[in-house]
């Protein structure tokens, strides 16, 4: 068994929480610059320029890109030959978040659903565990903002809907969201699985860097087709009209029940903040 100490895990989560929020990922930044070349609207161009400038200020001043520094989500793939020492793993994740959000002056954005009382330390966090072969622990850590998350949707479609129906639902979801999720957005799509699995697929689809091809050539075509339709809507940067409504559509798909066609659409704003941590 390979041992991994909770101390190391806490430190890495803490550092990542701060870095994610201060430094816009390079793939997102270069995608925004490409968008600037393709945007026809003057207002749209001005907005993209502001976002690029914002990323520079955030990195330089060590101040968050967005004031919504997010709800922490960790998707953990735990090797079967890993042994965690020094405490329990979930508590280590939460301690890392607690320390990172405090030291980085990040916003605590977690509250009671009804009283709206803030929990004060950005916990609890959302954790999904999976067991895999091997002796590594791999974490996908995302800081998710509420504005775009609120516009995400899940549909249990009839199988007869097919690809045409799926495509229509994705475009309709983006249209209804309009300016609310801070376009230009990145659209994570999960097709198949089950009710909850489709949502997890959609989230995982967002963990692919912008500008990289889907390894499944069937999905590459589908992604291109939906993105083209989305960018015909005219919503544009911040919904003020323009060509670039979404930067990319990323799809993950798996088999599903013979009666179902689950579809989850995870709308991610331009401030896409996630990282892969491997121990």
């Amino acid at each position, binding site marked *: 068994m390979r041992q991994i100490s909770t101390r190391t895990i806490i430190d890495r989560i803490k550092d990542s929480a701060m870095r994610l929020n201060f430094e816009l990922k390079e793939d997102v930044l270069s995608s925004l610059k490409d968008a600037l070349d393709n945007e*026809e*609207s*003057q*207002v749209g161009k*001005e*907005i993209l320029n*502001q*976002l690029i*400038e*914002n*990323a520079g*200020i*955030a990195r330089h*001043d*060590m*101040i*968050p*890109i*967005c*004031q*919504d*520094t997010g709800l922490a989500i960790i998707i953990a793939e735990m090797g079967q030959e890993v042994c965690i020492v020094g405490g329990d793993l979930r508590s280590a994740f939460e301690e890392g978040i607690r320390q990172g959000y405090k030291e980085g*002056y*990040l*916003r*605590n*954005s977690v509250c009671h659903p009804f009283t*709206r009382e*803030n929990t*004060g330390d950005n916990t609890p966090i959302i954790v999904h565990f999976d067991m895999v072969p091997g002796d590594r622990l791999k974490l996908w850590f995302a800081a998710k903002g509420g*504005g775009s998350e*609120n516009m995400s949707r899940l549909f249990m479609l009839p199988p007869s809907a097919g690809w045409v129906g799926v495509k229509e639902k994705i475009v309709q979801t983006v249209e209804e969201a*309009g*300016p*609310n999720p*801070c376009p230009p957005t990145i659209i994570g799509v999960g097709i198949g699985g089950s009710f909850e699995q489709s949502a997890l697929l959609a989230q995982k689809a967002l963990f692919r860097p912008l500008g990289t091809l889907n390894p499944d050539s069937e999905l590459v075509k589908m992604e291109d087709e939906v993105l083209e339709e989305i960018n*015909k*809507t*005219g*919503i*544009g940067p*911040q*919904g*003020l*009209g*323009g*060509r670039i409504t979404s930067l990319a559509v990323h799809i993950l798909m798996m088999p599903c029940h013979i009666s179902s066609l689950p579809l989850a659409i995870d709308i991610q*704003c*331009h*401030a896409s903040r996630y990282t892969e941590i491997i121990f």
Partner: protein
Amino acid sequence: MDKVYHLEAPLSIEDIECLKIGDMVDVSGYIYTARDAAHQRFLKLIKEGKELPIPIEGQIIYYVGPTPAPPGKVIGAAGATTSYRMDPYSPALLEMGLKGMIGKGRRSNEVKEAMVKYKAIYMASVGGAAALMSRSIKEASVVAYEEMGPEAVMKLKVEKMPAIVVNDIFGNDLYNEGKKKYRIN
């Protein structure tokens, strides 16, 4: 870009009656922050006939829950939050003379009608450009509901905070017009 209109908050009707959707503005002066939770409390006070913790007449409310101020800074990141969550509460504040709202995203028909009726505007600032926005904020102090953390109500002194007029006093909506202009088929 086209002409930029300078607004000095608090506002008068004369300041905003010349503004139309798509106009770029920069806001200076004193404005107040409030999100959903604060609005909910304001409405409760109004219903009970009690005084609000901030003045409303002529004021601008900025929908923001900033990050905490790091040492040596006035405020942390401070970009706009999505405005529709304030829709159930805004008409009552507009009736009391609120003249401007800054946020991002669409407003309800009720809010848009109230903006025409009571003559007020809604402006959008770029959502997610929170580090950039914080540079326009020169002073910040909590004036109510400190226990709500990031949702506390703050008074901000701002200098040339950039925004764009989305709903004017004539009932126009830039989100509809902008989309129509660039829609294909």
